[in-house]
């Protein structure tokens, strides 16, 4: 009986209702997240799934780089894991900003739980694949996620929605800043992981991508000979 009671009340069991609550930006849902058991695990699962979905949605880069099928799957999976790490850094910096900027004192774990669920709209990230309409979908999902995050943050603290936005922005800026300072090594490390998994050195610069798309075509080489258009010193008009 006890077991049943616990299972009926865990975040995992309530997964879909919680997720749809977040979709609707329902403040009650955010409140209940913190009180449910297993909500930490579940929130990380949400982030992981969102990461998977979004990376899949943006997988065109892997295709352009001609990654093999099973490496493709691995790459998407690794990217999703990296997404989770990135998320945690961001939560941490947001939490720090909230603490210093607004003098708030709430547990980090609560922020992790709430913000994790706020990523729910990104579960639809796979829709970005849809040609032409994918890009507007990405924009809509991003705004939706941001709204969910701000709502979540303001629910677990006493912040107004605008202050919550400021927190998010501050956290994001702090993250960018720290990435500039210490992030190069991390970036190099992650990109080497990604390249290793993909089995090729992934090229992401637009110029090189364009070059790649022209590779293999029998394009006549541009003549590097500079035509002698001035002639010798002896030949001249008087």
């Amino acid at each position, binding site marked *: 009986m006890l077991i049943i009671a616990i299972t009926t009340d865990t975040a995992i069991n309530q997964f879909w209702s919680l997720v749809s609550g977040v979709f609707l930006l329902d403040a009650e849902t955010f409140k209940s997240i913190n009180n449910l058991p297993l909500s930490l695990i579940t929130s990380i699962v949400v982030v992981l799934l969102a990461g998977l979905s979004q990376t899949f949605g943006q997988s*065109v880069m*892997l*295709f*352009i780089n*001609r*990654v*093999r*099928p099973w490496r*493709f799957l691995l790459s998407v999976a690794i990217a999703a894991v990296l997404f989770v790490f990135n998320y945690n850094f961001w939560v941490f910096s947001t939490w720090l900003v909230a603490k210093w900027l607004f003098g708030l004192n709430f547990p980090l774990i609560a922020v992790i739980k709430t913000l994790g669920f706020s990523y729910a709209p990104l579960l639809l990230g*796979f*829709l970005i*694949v*849809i*040609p*032409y*309409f*994918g*890009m507007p979908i990405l924009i809509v999902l991003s705004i939706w996620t941001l709204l969910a995050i701000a709502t979540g943050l303001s629910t677990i603290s006493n912040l107004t929605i605008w202050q919550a936005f400021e927190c998010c922005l501050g956290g994001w800026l702090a993250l960018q800043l720290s990435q500039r300072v210490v992030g190069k090594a991390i970036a190099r490390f992650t990109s080497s992981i990604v390249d290793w998994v993909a089995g090729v050195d992934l090229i992401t610069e637009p110029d090189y*991508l*364009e070059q790649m*798309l*022209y590779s*293999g*075509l*029998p*394009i*006549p080489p*541009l*003549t*590097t*000979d*500079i*035509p*002698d*258009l*001035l*002639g010798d*010193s*002896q*030949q*001249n*008009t*008087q």
Partner: protein
Amino acid sequence: MLKRILFVLLALSVVTFLSPANVGWIQWYAVVENQLFNLLIDSGRIIGISLVLAGLLAPFEALGWWAGWYGGKQDPSTLSLKHTQASLGKATAAPHYIVYLDGIGKSSFKYSFRGARFLQRLTESLPSDRILIDNIIPYSVINLPLTLNRPLAKFWLWIERTTNLGFLVLLRNMFQVAVSVDSRYGPIYNRGTAEIIIDRLLTKGYQPGSGALITLIGYSGGGQISLGAVPYIKRVLAAPIEVISLAGVISGNNEVVQVEHLYHLVGEKDRVTRFTPCLFPRRWSIITWSNWNLAKSRGEISFISLGKVGHDSKNGPLDENALFPDGSNHLARTIEIILRILTRVDGYEPYPAAVADYSAKSERIVSDYENYVKAKFNRPDFYPLAQTYCDHYLPVAEWMGRLILPDVTERSQVGGVYFEVHHAPELDLIGKKVYLRWSDRPDIQAYVNQVKIRIDFSQQAYKSIHQGIVLPTRLNHWRQVQALESLAGARPNDDVMVALTSVEVIREPQIILSISREPILITGKYYALVSFKEVFPTDYALVRHYNHHSGQFDGQEDIVYLPQVVPDRNGVLPATANKITESPLNQTGWYIYGAKNEQGMFTVQAIAPRALFQLQPAKVISGLQKTTDYIHDQYWQGVTEKKGQIDSILLNPGNLSDTELINSYQEGDRLLVLHTYGGIGGNKREFAPLNIFFGHFSFGLARVVREPLTQELRFKIGYGQVYTQNTTGIIAASLDWTNFVGDRQFGWLGSRPITDIIVKLDVFEEYNFDGLRRFPLNALAYQLDRMMARYRTGDGTGATFVGPANSCVQDSCQALYQAINMTLTEIEQNPQIKAWITTNPQHPQTQRLQRLVTLNKAIEDQLITWQTRADWVDPYQSLIGTRLADSPVTTVVNALTSWRSLLPRLANDSLGSIFLNHGASLWLLQTYQVGGWDKDIEPIAPTKLWI
């Protein structure tokens, strides 16, 4: 009948609503309504989910193909050249290839009934030398029909056979069009379809680089697919491409500006095509920076109505059974329009994108050029071909003559332009009209092919003509206009006089002069050195020739004709003979250029003060700081007081002795020239907004030559004028000093202050890597030639305009930037040069080369402040002939990115300083309204802003 029906209906409704059965009815209705609603919701859901699924799956055919997931022996994304080699043997070499891309109803190679009929009719009516290519599945990157070798092939086969399910094919293919439009997948997808098209063209014998025209006909979604493939086809086949969009769905995301012309055929009842623009922001007119709007404003898109015609199937453009009020059917009309486009001849465009609007209220302004050529002495026919001279007159070049533009019908035969030989080492050719062609040398041909373009005047070009600007009107609607044609046809009359160098004469089967250098525009075919003794009111002048024995002007006396020139539209006289005998320059003499008229009287067309070109500076300034300061703010000082005079100042940053420095200028030296001119002030002051005189900038080349009449060394200057079309009729081309400056009618010597800075820098001298000879200024000459040829055609729009992003100075500097890149690339990549450097690391030439690299990088740093302009990086993106108003955002961004080359004098002075800092000596040759005395004008220095 109607009454009876109404009666029955009334009876039925009475029975229905008033009878006791009423309750039952209502219950039944409620149930049905509920179920119907659910049914609607359910089917909506199913449709929604299938749409999302179809959308999710759509990109993967193209993506998987590119990533090589489908396997196969050969890398699917590599197009082999075997066709080219195979077809070279066959060499069918048709002049025109036509590729048809079908609409989105396509599931297999089989055409729909109407499509097949269309193709049949088209094939029947096409001239026999055209090659039509069909049987391409535009909606599969691997050209694979839906009904073959696919997991769902059976399903699609069934769909094909089932009458009412065709919309599924439409849906599937519509998503493929969306893939082509998508900025992420589009490049891959379009590469795939382009590869199929290229492959088919090569199979049918297309020879890359042959310049044979390719027309892509895209029906419905095929319109988008054709435009998507264009950049790849253009790059691989170097072909001119025209696109006919037949009720085409076009996103505007493509490189539509790369096509020579787009004909957009739309029916008036075609809801699909009319709705398309709503879906694609780049087709909205407020998105001014989109390629679509750019192409539109450049006059590259012709909008053609198909009449009251729908999008497809019944009542569509291919329907043979749907009739117009005049009795003709839709298909016949469509075929007729397409045929008119496909078979049009040069010079005539049945569907122009822009037309001259003669309804304009303002009256047409007559160009200065038109006024000038009313004077007989400004026309070539004033000077008879047969000329004889005594020793005092010498020809200015070995080969001279007049360029004549061939008629449209003669173009393919002439393969260039006609040349009326006026002076030649081979005397029998004089007076003959021969062919003038480019040499067959591969590097020359590569250059020639690069600047070939189709010309269609834009609306703005027509407006320019109305405003009195001289445009190449004879070349309008010509395809593949080449550099010689754009030179000969730059003005409405055949009056371009040129000198030719490196001429090869071919006599069989007809006389051809083959050249490997751009012709140089000259004024005056013969010249003499004289001092004016008296100018008579009759416009004749008494002159005394130079006597090389005495070194004085005590030679033979002569009478020459100095005709009164025609004033420009502001009333300014380009030259005057008034008080020319009192000019301080008369003592050292004038070179006079011209020819004899019918009466045998030498008519002076251009003059040049001898002292200006002598290697005798009036002043030498030494020291790096002093010379830099001089360039910085002193050389234009006191310009008003110097009216009628010249300056010859030698800047010597290296502190050499005067004689040593002057003696370093040796016969045969080829030196870079920086040219600027200023404004016209005084009573007839020219209009200058905010009192800013922008002036003008160009590069040029000076040679040190031994002048045969005096036996002394002198500078001989020519310019690479990147010059927008103008009222005077000055052409963007290689212009000799006599033409651009000295010409008494068309030149600026008498009316503007001019500075030519001659740059002497050892790193610009010739290099010799064990026989591989390289002259660095060749790269600049090459890039300038290209730029000038493009200016003459306005990149196909017929006109160029001065604006912040494109102007004489911006585009001369662009040419310089490209030349630097070219030079650096060659030094880095040429194996022979690399090997030479490795074996001779300490050789002075290696050190000189290193200094050339450093100099080039310094210039690059100066030109590019934070990043290179997008259109400088990729020459394909650069488009001249676009005005600020046509694409304001791009223009402003571009202008700001290259702000260092925005103003002529700023660019000139900063280049001058860089050269000084790299050890160059600069020789400033300045003239301040030289010749006779005109009391109504004053020289004004070009405005310098910043620094």
